[in-house]
């Protein structure tokens, strides 16, 4: 660990190679199978308790953001509201539409609900602790490709949405389910790209390894753009405002869960909240140093507050920060239209993420020493990459401003107008001048003049093309 620290801190200028380690830093050798079961139960309970709290939390905070108290009827401060919600959902009538596909209709919510928990298996909630006589990390499991597991499970979870939509047997849920799934798989790509930058820095996809690699510097600092991209995609993945058009109440009834009621609906509800926690936990792990204490507190008493069970506190605090950001977004932003949202995902996020990944790869290569061992390799790379990015942004800004200007210019009222253009006469606006109607070839304009004309040329009087009533 100290070698890592030294190398990370010192290599910014010396360019010493960094030890890349694929395999997990967490040590599972002393974890018998029953202890894993115990830990699985602990994670399950941890998540469910947090769901109970987040339902209350969200409604109260959204209420305060809208200058109203939020639920305050059941229990002091409305704390028993979740219980009331749960009881209501349990006691509702469970309706199955006549045209529904029975098997899939029942499987879909359970798929969504169950898979939501699976992703939490690889997230480290704390450091190494002593439990029942064994030393075990506070993490259910870890593999060299742990982070990809979250993405994979999200992908399979999307099946739940599309199945729910299709099996309801009516149009709005089908549309909602397809939209929701398209949204999830589109933003998975952008999420993956945001994560690639983290993998480049940490040298591994194992979550415990990534947490260990952030012991000196949290990745939110050097990878702020990836952080922003990850936040946006995280909100898009979980179908939350401003990206919840697939289940938007105003547009599609309820989207894929329109026809569901009672406990099946509760499963979707639960799955959505657990997904929120999972991606928030992943964000904490990948960008905010996981379960490690903030830098100031970590230094107290040589890291006393930075190990073992204390990790749970820091991790939970950071995760709830993200949950607050979720609620804040919901309280502040209107819903994005679906086509705008897909355009944003495919045409803005993915190219931008790709460019950023290339930039990070170059910077990282300079740090590792691929561009030479001297001390100038890194600064030169940074300047070049930074310069290109800034230049690109300025060009982009100019292009957008020009397009906007052109659009506005097209809308301005023209100085000259042909009054009969729309088919019926329109009076001129102040400042406009009327344009004469274009006449057929050969016609003279109708003028009152007494100058003599040569005999052969048609005049207004005997020209057969001018209408009868304007002839002299």
């Amino acid at each position, binding site marked *: 660990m100290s070698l890592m620290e030294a190398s990370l801190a010192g290599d910014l200028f010396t360019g010493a190679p960094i030890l*890349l*380690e*694929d*395999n997990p830093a967490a040590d599972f050798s002393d974890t018998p*199978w029953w202890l894993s079961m115990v830990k699985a139960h602990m994670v399950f309970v941890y998540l469910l308790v947090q769901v109970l709290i987040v339902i209350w939390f969200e409604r109260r905070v959204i209420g305060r953001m809208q200058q109203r108290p939020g639920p305050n009827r059941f229990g002091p401060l409305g704390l028993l509201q979740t219980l009331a919600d749960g009881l209501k959902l349990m006691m509702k009538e469970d309706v199955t539409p006549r045209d529904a*596909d029975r*098997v*899939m209709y029942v499987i879909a919510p359970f798929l969504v609900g169950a898979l939501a928990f699976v992703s939490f298996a690889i997230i480290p909630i704390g450091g190494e602790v002593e439990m029942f006589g064994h030393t075990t990390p506070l993490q259910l499991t870890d*593999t*060299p*490709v742990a982070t*990809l*597991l979250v*993405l*994979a499970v*999200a*992908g*399979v979870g*999307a*099946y739940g949405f*599309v*199945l729910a939509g*299709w099996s309801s047997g009516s*149009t709005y849920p*089908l549309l909602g389910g*397809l939209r929701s*799934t*398209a949204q999830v*798989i589109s933003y*998975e790509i952008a999420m993956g790209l945001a994560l690639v930058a983290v993998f480049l820095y940490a040298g*591994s*996809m194992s979550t415990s390894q990534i947490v260990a690699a952030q012991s000196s510097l949290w990745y939110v600092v050097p990878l702020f753009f990836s952080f922003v991209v990850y936040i946006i995609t995280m909100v898009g993945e979980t179908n939350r405002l401003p990206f919840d058009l697939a289940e938007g109440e105003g547009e599609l009834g309820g989207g894929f869960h329109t026809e569901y009621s009672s406990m099946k609906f509760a499963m979707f509800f639960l799955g959505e909240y657990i997904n929120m926690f999972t991606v928030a936990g992943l964000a904490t792990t990948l960008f905010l140093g996981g379960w490690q204490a903030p830098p100031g507190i970590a230094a107290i008493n040589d890291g006393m507050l930075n190990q073992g069970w204390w990790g749970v506190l820091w991790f939970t605090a950071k995760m709830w920060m993200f949950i607050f950001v979720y609620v804040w977004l919901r309280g502040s932003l209107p819903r994005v239209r679906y086509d705008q949202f897909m355009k944003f995902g495919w045409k803005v996020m993915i190219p931008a993420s790709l460019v950023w990944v290339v930039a990070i790869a170059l910077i990282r290569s300079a740090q590792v020493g691929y561009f030479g061992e001297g001390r100038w390799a890194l600064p030169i790379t940074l300047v070049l990459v930074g310069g290109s990015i800034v230049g690109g942004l300025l060009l982009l800004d100019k292009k957008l401003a020009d397009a906007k200007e052109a659009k506005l210019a097209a809308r301005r009222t023209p100085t000259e107008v042909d009054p009969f253009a*729309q088919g019926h006469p329109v009076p001129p606006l102040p400042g406009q001048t009327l344009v004469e109607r274009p006449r057929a070839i050969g016609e003279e304009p109708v003028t009152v003049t007494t100058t003599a004309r040569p005999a052969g040329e048609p005049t207004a009087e005997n020209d057969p093309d001018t209408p009868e009533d304007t002839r002299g």
Partner: protein
Amino acid sequence: MSGGEAVLFWVLAPATVLAALGLLFARKAVHAALSMALVMVSLGIFYVAQHAEFVGIIQIFVYSGAVMMLFLFVVMLIGVDSSDSLVETLPGQRIWGWLLALGFVGLAALAVSRVTFPAPVGLEQVQAEGAVTGLAREIFERQVFGFEMLAALLVIAVMGAMVLAHREQLTPRITQREMANERIRSGKWLAGKPAPGVYARHNAADTPALLPDGTPVEESVPRVLVARDQVSPPQPYRRVSDAAYDAIEGQDADEESEVERTSKARPGEIEEGSRR
């Protein structure tokens, strides 16, 4: 195989075989597609159990998460029915099918029976530096040429798909502003079509609105539902209005006869006044 792995295998393998059979014999296309997704996920799990974690996760992520999902989209949207015609139009297809299938089975059985498998070594040696690093070395050091060719091929395929699916915009795209102007100029349904609940007694989207004389308004139900023949009849909701109208008219008849009797009134005027 260690204990855990044996349990995993013997639980998952029969499920996978059943899913594969489901793919072949399922009635509905969606069930078949989902069985295939299950097979792919199980394969991914087997790879992970064999220590090929990266390949396993990517199998789940890409194959069942993206490829199969798109299959499913197509099946759900287009709706492949089992009621599709099973009459084969190619002449002699059955005979040739059987012949070629038997030939292939024979060849495959011959080939497989001649294969000798060396003793399994496992992936520990290859993945000495870690699973992902081992794979990376294989791809980018020993097989980089083949990998780059594949990448080029994929890019070409994507471009080909784009070109084939591309539709040239022959007329200028109509903006929202222009569409709105057109609608106002045409003068039709300027205030929007009547929503189902405006005149009817039910506000479901599939119950049409009723005009004052009781006829349903077709424009108040979405076209999709009309095309799918899912419009529900409005008769039950007219009964209450009809009963009320009858009662009022019966009452009017009483009043009319009364007034006529008592005041020897002018019949024409009264009739007009009371017939609403």
